[in-house]
């Protein structure tokens, strides 16, 4: 990932997303019962999967930090989780828009994935609260790494919990819409997913570059003082 220089990565993301939007609106067939609004699916689900990828990458960097302490692993874990929260928020927004058009309600407790993102959103906001409450240093890096690992374990556990909560608290009124995709739809979905993942990689490198610049500048100012 780091070997690819930033401009190439940004270009790849733009191309991939451009192609996927073109495919979504001009190639993918209009869905039978849901009509045009089904096309929200092509962005909503890839963004959700990208958010999972962000959290997984953040947890991987956290594990790396605790295990072999490479330089900068803590910063990369932080930026990855920051990306995860951004994509998570987009998932919640697009998800609620889709819920509005599909079921007329802005928030659908019956959509497992939406509820899971709500839980993860709460969890990872707490990650930032922890990070801002402890002074920078090895202690903070260790704690944030441990908390990131808890986050990645929380994803499957909460998903299971939410499914279990179906049968007694919220009986399912609408079937959760995981539409079976035809061949062409699946192809477009994959292109959109690749586009989103590349976008994550590009934004991730941009923010990392910014944070490293910040650190070097602070050190420069310190040396000059």
């Amino acid at each position, binding site marked *: 990932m780091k070997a690819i220089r930033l401009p190439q990565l940004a270009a790849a993301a733009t191309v991939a997303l451009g192609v996927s*939007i073109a495919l979504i609106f001009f190639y993918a067939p209009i869905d039978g019962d*849901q*009509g*045009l*609004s089904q*096309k*929200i699916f092509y*962005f*909503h689900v890839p*963004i959700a999967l990208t958010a999972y990828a962000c959290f997984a990458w953040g947890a991987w960097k956290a594990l790396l930090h605790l295990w072999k302490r490479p330089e900068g692993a803590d910063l990369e874990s932080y930026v990855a989780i920051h990306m995860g929260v*951004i994509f998570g*928020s*987009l998932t919640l*927004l*697009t998800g609620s*828009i*889709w819920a*509005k*058009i599909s079921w007329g309600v802005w928030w659908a407790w019956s959509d497992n994935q939406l509820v899971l993102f709500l839980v993860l959103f709460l969890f990872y906001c707490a990650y930032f609260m922890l990070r801002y409450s402890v002074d920078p240093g090895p202690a903070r890096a260790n704690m944030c790494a441990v908390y990131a690992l808890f986050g990645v374990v929380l994803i499957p556990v909460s998903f299971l919990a939410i499914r279990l909560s179906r049968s007694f608290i919220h009986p399912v009124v609408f079937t959760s819409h995981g539409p079976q995709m035809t061949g062409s739809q699946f192809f477009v979905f994959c292109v959109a997913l690749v586009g989103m993942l590349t*976008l994550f990689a590009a*934004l991730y490198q*941009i*923010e990392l570059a*910014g944070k490293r*610049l*910040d650190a070097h*500048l602070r050190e*420069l*100012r310190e040396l*000059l003082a």
Partner: protein
Amino acid sequence: MSPSEKYTAAAYLVVFVGVLAYVLIIAAKLQRLQREVADILERVRERDRG
């Protein structure tokens, strides 16, 4: 536009605006960094002259 089209457009617009907002934040950070580099450059020049 039918409600279906309106909401689809809204969804894609939200994503586009989100990424755009992110670009703006990075642009602001870039500007701040440029100012800081200029400031440090100035101080180094002073030290050389001093």
